[in-house]
C-alpha cells in the first residue's frame, strides 16, 4: 500500500505503529488546527501541505486520535455546512489545546535536538 506517485518517500503516521508516534500525531493535528477551524479531511490535507506532501495521515487513525483529543478538551467540534453544501463536523483549537501544542512542540524540539546530538557524536 505504499503510494508510488510521490516524489519523496512518504512517512506514514499511524496510531498503532508506536506509542511515540501517537503523541506526534496529536501534535500534528493540533498544529494543523492552530491555523484555523477544519474538518477531518481538511486536517489531513493541511498536514500534507505543511509537510510538503511528505506526511500522509491515515484516515482510520485520524478520527480516533481526533476524538481522544476532543475528550481531553483540546479541541471543540460543531456541525456546520461545508462549501460543497453538505454537513461537516468542524474542529477548532481550544485555549487548552493551544497550550498543549506549545508543550508538545517544545518537547519535540528537545527530542530532535537530543537525537541530533547523539547522531553527531558518531
Amino acid at each position, binding site marked *: 500500500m505504499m503510494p508510488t506517485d510521490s516524489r519523496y518517500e512518504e512517512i506514514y503516521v499511524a496510531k498503532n505503529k508506536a506509542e511515540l508516534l501517537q503523541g506526534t500525531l496529536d501534535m500534528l493535528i493540533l498544529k494543523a488546527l492552530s491555523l484555523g477551524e477544519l474538518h*477531518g479531511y481538511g486536517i489531513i490535507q493541511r498536514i500534507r501541505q505543511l509537510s510538503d506532501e511528505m506526511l500522509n495521515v491515515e*484516515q482510520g487513525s485520524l478520527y480516533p486520535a481526533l476524538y481522544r483529543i476532543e*475528550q481531553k*478538551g483540546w479541541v471543540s467540534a460543531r456541525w456546520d455546512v461545508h462549501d460543497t453544501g*453538505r*454537513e*461537516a*463536523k468542524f474542529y477548532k483549537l481550544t485555549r487548552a489545546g493551544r497550550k498543549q501544542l506549545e508543550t508538545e512542540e517544545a518537547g519535540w524540539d528537545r527530542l530532535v535536538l537530543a537525537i541530533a546530538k547523539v547522531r553527531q557524536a558518531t
Partner: protein
Amino acid sequence: MKWVNIIRDRIRALRQRETVINDIDREMRLHLELQVEANIKAGMSPQEAREKAMRSFGNLNRAVDAAYDVKGGGLFETISQDIRYGVRMLAKHKAFTSVAVVTLALGIGANTAIFSVVNELLLRPLPYRNAEQIVMLWEVTPEGRHQNTTSRANFRAWRAQNTSFQNLAAFTDQRFNMTGAGEPEELSVQQATPEIFNVLGVDPLLGRTFRPEDGEPRNTDVAVLSYGLWQRRFGGQANIVGQQLTLNGTKFTVIGVMPPSFQFHIKSRSGTGRPAELWSILPMPVGPGANERGRFLSVVGRLKDSISANQAAAELRTIEARLSDEAPEYNKNFSAEVLPLRDQFFGNLRRPLWLMLGAVGFVLLIACANVANLLLSLATSREKEIAVRTALGARRFRIVRQLLTESLLLALLGSAMGLGFAYLGIKALVLISPRDLVSLQGVGLNLMVLAWTLGVSLLTGIIFGLAPALHVSRLNLNDSLKEGGKSESAQAGGSRRLRSALVVSEIALAVVLLASAGLLIRSFIRLQQVDRGFETDNLLTMVVRVPDSRYREDAQFVNFFGQVLERTRHLPSVRSAGMVNFLPLYGGLGSATGFKIVGRPEPAPGQGPSTDVRVADAGYFQTMGIPLLRGRNFSDSEQREPKHVILINEALARKHFPDEDPIGQRLDVEMFDTPQPAEIIGVVGNVRYDSLIDESPPAVYFPHPDLTYPFMTLVIRTDGEPTAIAPAVQREVRALDPNQPVSDVRTMNQVMADWVSRSRFNTLLLGLFAGLATLLSAVGIFGVMNYSVALRTREIGLRLAIGAQPRQVLLLVLRQGLLLTVAGLVLGLAAAFALTRLLSGLLFGVEAVDVTTFTSISLLLVVVSLLACYLPARRAMRIDPLRALRYE
C-alpha cells in the same frame, strides 16, 4: 475537565449508540467523498478515484469501530457481550456452576456474618457523641490488679487537679427495690454524679437529664428512666416526667426518659451484672461519717479536644502519685490508668474477633482455590473453543477478560447466595452468642457489611479467576486444535501442576484451621475438667435482697435470712440449703481486703496481705460440697449472734500458716470501722470464685451475724430437677415478707455455662469453620483426583491391558492423592506452628504447639483425604482397558 468529557461521551455512547455511530459514520463518509472528488480532480476515473480513496481509508467499518471505541461505546459493548456470553456458559455447565456457587456462598457467607460482628463491635462508632473522646479512669492496685474502682476522695482529687478532661463523672451500679405501683421489683440502677450524661454526650427522649444542682445534698431525689423501664412499668405514658416512684422506700421524681438506643454498662466492673434501667444521683457526702476512702466508684471522662488518652493517663498517674504521698495509708503503691471506651467494652473481644475473621478468610481462600480448580478443569475442556477464538483473531487480553467476566459472575452469584447464608448465620450467631458478649442484637446486614461483601466477592472473583484465565490464554493453538483437549497435552500437564498446587494450599489452610480449632477444643475440655471446688449438679441458686431501709438492726437481717433458710430446708425434695453473699463465677467485684494476723509484726502501709472476703453460713459448705479440711464448721449460736469466728480456705492456710496450725489463730480483717479480730475455727477447700482459670486466692468466710449483708444468694441442693423447687422457695420468701422480690433464679450449671459461654462460643465457631475448611478441601482433592483419573484413562487402560492388577491401579491413585495431602500437611503444620501462638490468650491448659492436637488433626486430615481419593481410585480400578484404548 478531561474525565468529565470522557464520562459524558461514554454515557452518550451507551445510551444513544445509534446516534453516536451515525455521527461518526456521517463524518467519515463525507471524508471519503471529499477524497474521491479530490482524486477525480487529480485526473483519475471515478471508479479509480473511489477505489483509491477506499484503500487509503482502510476498512471503513473498522475505522468506525475504532472511533466508537474511543467514544467509549466499545468498552461497554464488549463488556455486555462478555456478560451475555458468560451467562450462557454458566447456564450450560449447570453442575459446575452450582458447585462453584455453593462453595463460594459458604465462604462469602461465613465472611459476611463474621464481618458484620466485627463491624458492629470494632469498627462502627459507639453510640455517644464524639465517642473517641470518652475514656474510663481506673486505679491499679499495689498487687497489679487493673481496672480497680476508686474512692470518693480520689475521684474528687482527680476532678479538681486534672487539665486533660472536659468533664469527669463517677458512677456505681446498684440494685434498688422498687415498690408501690404493681409487683415489688428489683431494679438495676446506675447511681452517678450529675455530669454523666454530659460526659457521654446523650440527650434525653423526654424531659431532661441531670443538672449540676441535682448533685446538691437536698436535691438528689431525681431519677432518669431507661426507655425499656418506661415502656415496661409505665406503659410509655407521655406524662411520666414529674411522676413519683419509690426506690428502697424513698420517693424519687422522674425528670426524664432516655432514648431506646442509650445504654452505658461496664459489664466486667458492674456489681449488678445487668444494664441499668434507671439513673439516680450518686450522693457525694463530705465530712465525718462519709465513706470517703472506700473504693467502689467507676469513673468516666471526656478528653479535651487535643488531648490523647496516653497524655491523660500520664497526668492521672502524676496526680495519683501525689495522692499516694498525701495519704499513704490509703493510696500507697496505687497507680491509675485510662482506657478508651471501645477498649473497655470490646478490648477482650478484639483478638478473638480478628482471629475469627482470619479463620473465615482462610475458609474463603479454600473456597477460591476450589473454584479455581473447577474453572481450570472446565477451561481445559474448553481449550478447543478458546483456540478457535484465538485463531479467529481474539487477542489474549480479550480472552482473559472474557474468562474473568465469567469468574466475576460466579463470584457475584456466590455472594448473592452468601448473603442469604450470612443472614441465617447472623441469626444463629446472635442465638448462640454468650450472654456477656455485649449485645449482638444490632448486628445485621447493613450498608457497610454489603459493601464489604461486594468487595470480597469482586476480590475473590479475581483471585480464583485470574490463574485459570492466564493459564488458558497461554494455550498453544496447534496442540489444542489437534488434540481436542481430551488427552494429556503439555498444557494439561502444566494445568495439573497448578491444580496440585491449589489443592496443596487448600490442605495447608485447612490444617491451620483444624489445629486452631483442636487447640480450642482441648482447652474447652480442660476448662470443664477443672476442679472448681464444689459440686454443680442439682443445685439451685437465687438472690434475695432486703432493702437497707427495711430493717434497722443487723439482727433483723440475720433473722430474716435464717427464717428463709429454715423454711426452705423443710420443702419436699430439698436435701440441703445454705447461703453466701457472692456465688462462685458470678462475676461482679471480688474485692481484695487487707488483713493482719494477730501477734505478728505490723507490715508497712500497703504491704500487708489481702484476702477475698465472703459471708456464708454452715449450710453453704454442706450444700456446695466444699470439704471441711480441718477444725469445725460454724455452730448454730455463731449463726445467731456475732461470736467473732471465721473459716479460711486452704490457700490462705497454705500461704500464711505453712508450718503451724491455723486453728485458734486470730485475723483482723479490715472490713470494720474498728479492729475486730476473729478466730479461725476451721479450714475449708478452695473454690474458684473469680474464674476457672486462675488459682483460688486466699479467702475468709464470716458468718452472717459477724458481717451482715442485706442481700444473700441462696444455694439449694435438690433431689430432682432443681428449677422445679423455685416457685415454692419464692412462696416461702413472700410468706415472710410480701414486698420481698427474689431475683437471678438459676441453677449452678447455668451459672457455670454462662461463665464458659465465651470459650464455648469461640470453640464452636472455630470448630465450625475448621469443619467447613476440611469439607471444602476434601471436595478439592476429590475434584483433582477425579479429573486426573479422567485424563489418565488411556494410560490406566494401557497398564491394565498389559497386566497391572486393579489393586495396583487403586494404590497408584491413592498414592498420588496421599502425596498431595502430605505436602499440604507439612506446609500447614509449619504455618500452624507459627500461627497458633496468636491463640495463646484463648487457650487454657494446652500449649500453642500441642503435639497431641497436631498429631490427631494430621491423622484426621489424612483419613478424610484418603476417603476423598477413594471414589476416583475405584473408578480408575474399574476402567475397561478395551474401551479406554479405543477412546479418543
